[in-house]
């Protein structure tokens, strides 16, 4: 199984770093998934949720407001204004979810995009 490196950086520091199998990103022109050895790409990111599938098969969600992604063959760098890692090993899911929702709601985009992202965040709870 091939993997790639993923980094999510905000002005306040590194949010996530690690090897992943797949990542789904909320692009400006629609959501798209990236697998290892993807062609080089730069895209604007919209308010939404990044879904990461780690090498261990775990699913991690990160809420973002807006930013960029740069994809290389084996590395994905996300540069975003604000991000909240929703579920990691440490738990505290409900607190993180509240933070994520706040971040999404304060984003300056269309209500539709925000609503979609918020509902996605809420769906995490159900699956847990």
């Amino acid at each position, binding site marked *: 199984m091939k993997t790639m490196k993923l980094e999510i950086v905000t*002005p*306040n*520091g590194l949010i996530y770093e690690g090897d992943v199998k797949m990542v789904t990103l909320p692009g400006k022109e629609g959501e798209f998934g990236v697998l290892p050895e993807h*062609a080089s790409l*730069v895209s604007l990111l919209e308010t939404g949720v990044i879904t990461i599938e780690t090498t261990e098969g775990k699913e991690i969600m990160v809420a973002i407001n807006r930013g*960029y992604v740069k994809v290389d063959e084996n590395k994905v760098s996300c540069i975003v*204004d*604000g991000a909240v890692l929703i579920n990691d090993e440490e738990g505290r899911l409900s607190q993180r979810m509240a933070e994520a929702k706040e971040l999404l709601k304060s984003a300056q985009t269309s209500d539709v995009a925000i609503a979609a992202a918020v509902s996605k965040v809420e769906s995490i709870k159900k699956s847990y």
Partner: protein
Amino acid sequence: MASLKDIKRKIKSVKGTQKTTHAMKLVSSAKLKRAEELAKRSKMYAQKITEMIDEIALQIAKYNDVSDNIYFRTVENPKTVDIVFVTADKGLCGGFNSQTIKSVNAMLSEYEAKGTTVRLRAIGKKGIAYYRFNKREMLDEIEGLSASPSYEEAAKFIRACVDDYIAGKTDKVVLVHNGYVNMITQEIRVDNLVPVDPSTLPEGSTSNSELELEPDDDDTLLEALIHRYLEYLMYYALIDSLAAEHGARMQAMDAATTNAKEMVKTLTVQYNKARQEAITTELIEIISGVESLK
């Protein structure tokens, strides 16, 4: 000669001041550590974003001249210049604020000698107070941002500047702040925000592979990226200035504490001397009294 009671009162008051300055020093050093950490963490973001701008600019440069772009064009003789400067909201930090103000003043007179209109945008209470006192008009005044920098607020502020630039109201935006070098040194930093000087962007390692862009419009992407870059520069100036402010205050308060200590010492000597003198005089009086009775 001050009376014994006066000296005693003075010693007590100096000791009180010493306690305050010492406490302020401790507070500043704790805050400094936090600000330093924040600055360090955000450096990574800076690195990534400059890398990306560089790459996209290169990509675009393949097809058309970058200097045509409104953000990259060079202005020989700007008619209007905006100076954005950051000072602290609080004083008691040595020459920290006055250094910034001094360099802003130097720039002001330099530009005005060339016949350039200068508009000031002030962040921080101290700078605002200074220019208000000197009856110099400011375009923008923001308080409270330099004490607790937030990315959103910084972004909102800088967007107004960039909008003015695009609308042609100003030809150049310069950012001045007093930056952090280490615990005891601060340094005035001047950044040209727009137009962006392409040579200031670090040379990144550019891959040869064709870059796919989405949205498939170079300008939108570059524009948005540059906005992010400027927002970040503004935010970074704020945290850098905050770290420097705490450093300066720590130093100033340390000096004040030492001075107070010194003062207590001399006052104590003075007090002891005065007390001895009083005793001596009293003794002489008694002795001479006894002497006269003989």
